């Protein structure tokens, strides 16, 4: 029983990491309608900014906050200067542009900070405590709670605030939004900026555990995408729950289904995704979209 709980706890911790990136992807998706393959890469770059600020002597929390602010600006600039040109065209081209962005960011990080593994300090103490017979580290708990809090904040923002409504309107129908007087350009920039800021928080939370390298979040990106689709691309709560589910089920399948084992456990999220999508194409928590023919 102890093993089972431990696996669940660890799955939730890992799932929080996937969920963090998934939230950023949802944010961009909700405001611009596209999938940003570079989301993980941008989060890593933000973590490097924080690392550089730490090196200059700033205390950790301040370094992270400044990195978040820089990332917001950077995200907005990327939207305005790079993505704007492709938003109204073929979405496949836009996705490939984000792929190019990811490659570029990885290359820049590798050039400036090298490909070595850098140590990033954690905001939380390194100890762990026991819960129901399972060991939980403060770091995992802190990550889990932070992501949960951000998830709730995002959900509230989208559903209850004017900005959230405006962002969703712009993503849904840019032309009508423009006619209604919404500052479409500025809202797009805000959407990307927020996503980048969120990514910065995610990067800082995750870097102590995964060790800072340019490709730190490449593995997690695929899981994040799976979580986005499983949860429904329009729901912050949905994608985080999906991410947690993926993390937990993966662990359980690896240990309790010997046929799958640890090498094929990566199939679990996808099989789950497939089954859910057959029954509910909009994802677990997504809204059904109706398209005028």
């Amino acid at each position, binding site marked *: 029983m*102890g*093993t089972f709980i*431990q*696996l669940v706890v*660890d*799955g939730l*911790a*890992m799932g929080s*990491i996937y969920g963090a990136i998934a939230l950023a992807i949802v944010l961009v998706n909700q405001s611009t309608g596209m999938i940003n393959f570079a989301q993980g890469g941008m989060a890593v770059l933000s973590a490097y900014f924080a690392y550089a600020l730490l090196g200059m002597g700033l205390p950790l929390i301040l370094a992270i906050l400044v990195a978040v602010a820089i990332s917001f600006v950077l995200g907005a600039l990327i939207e305005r200067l790079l993505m704007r040109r492709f938003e109204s065209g073929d979405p496949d081209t836009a996705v490939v542009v984000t792929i190019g962005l990811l490659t570029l960011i*990885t*290359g820049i990080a*590798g050039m400036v900070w*090298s*490909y*070595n*593994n850098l*140590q990033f300090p954690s905001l939380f103490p*390194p100890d*762990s405590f026991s819960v129901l017979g399972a*060991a939980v*580290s403060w770091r995992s708990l802190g990550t889990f709670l932070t992501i949960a809090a951000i998830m709730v904040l995002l959900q509230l923002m989208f559903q209850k605030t004017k900005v959230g409504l405006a962002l969703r309107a712009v993503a849904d129908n840019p032309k009508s939004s423009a006619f209604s007087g919404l500052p479409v350009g500025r809202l797009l920039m805000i959407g990307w900026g927020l996503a980048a800021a969120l990514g910065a928080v995610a990067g800082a939370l995750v870097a102590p*555990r*995964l*060790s800072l*390298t*340019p*490709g730190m979040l*490449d*593995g*997690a990106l695929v*899981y994040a995408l799976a979580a986005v689709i499983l949860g429904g691309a329009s729901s912050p709560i949905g994608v985080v729950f999906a991410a947690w589910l993926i993390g937990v089920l*993966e*662990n359980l399948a*690896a*240990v309790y289904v010997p046929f799958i*084992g*640890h*090498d094929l*456990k*990566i199939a679990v999220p996808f099989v789950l995704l497939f089954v859910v999508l057959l029954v509910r194409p909009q994802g677990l928590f997504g809204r059904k979209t109706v398209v005028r023919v």
Partner: protein
Amino acid sequence: MNMRSKAVKAMGIVAIGSVVALTLAGCSRGGDAGGGDDGKGGDSGAPAASPGITDDAITLGVTTPLSGATAGPGNCTVAGLVAYFGQAGPIEFGDGKTREVTVEAFDDAYDPQKALSNFQQNQSNVFAFTSGLGTPTNRAYREAAIEEEVPQALVMTGDPLFSDRTESPWQLGFVPIYQNEGAAFGELLASSEEDHKVAILFQNDDYGKGYVEGFKSAIEGADNIEVVKELSYEATDTAVDAQLTELAASGADVFFNAMSITPLAIASIEKARELSWTPSWFLPSNTSSPGAILTPAAANAEDGFYSVSFAKAPQSPAFAEDEDVKGFLAALEEFSGDYTTKPDFPHCMWSYMVGATLEEAFKGMTEPTRENFMKSLTDISDFTAPLMLEGTSIDTTKDGQPAVASVVVQRFNGKGYENAESFD
């Protein structure tokens, strides 16, 4: 009508002209059939020099991952090499000529197809390929190298195929084969007087499996050693928590961790501590650095962290005053700025040793040909390269063994490593 027929005619003339020109030119390559690629000499008198070598210069090629997930160790495989030849300056060869050594690196991003491409595009400009990282990438161009008779010397893979002189006449591995490292620890453990239960975690590829194979063959027949659990993980995994949880529940007191990924090694040490599991550890040579892994993970030396090594670790305080290490760090700083100046991975030290070994081979060459180079390379014995630990040396004369066959089992003492005679 007139204009159109003129245009058509003009195009026709151009077409026929090109065809004739091409056919005539085409005969040039056809006539050379069989003459093309490598300079095998064969004239009487002085043998024609192989490509990539002149009277005052020689070019070495390295195809290795300089970007992507394995770029950390990949950059190190070039950094040490460049540092060595930078501080060595022009080298006097066995044929009396003094030559400047240039190292050209090519990024293959750990993609076998790109490694082959790098080989094909550059084999006529470089004298030999060396120091490349990775089994699939080295395997991808191994047969082409044999066919073209281009040396693939002292590569960074523990795959035994490269040290089999019959199968791979133009190749030689540098680092010990994985089986040897695993066996070294297995022997130490088997010689212990007490009973031990072993949990194994291995990387799911030839690297991890090789370690386990060597370990198991060394403990065969030892009644006091029992393997209670064996699990694998993928090099691309983000966490090994589930595996650690299972292994901790097995009640083993020895943990054989054949892992080559730095962040996962740190995570596994931390996870074991979280789970209150305190076995003795075994870590492979390339993932046991005190500075990069044990100290960040706050590893408790009391538990017993064992590793195998043949290179001095610069981060170890024991070697702080060591001449070799000081020279190595200075050379790295001065010459390897393009790649990396921090030896975070042992490949930096290893490629430095490759440089020294190559110098030995150059000194034994009597002709500027690739064939002569291979002959000289496979004739080095009892050579202690800089940075080698006492008790280890380079011997390239044994069929089936790479340049480094001997390793020393060491134990972490809180700051660095010291030799372990027995398991306690």
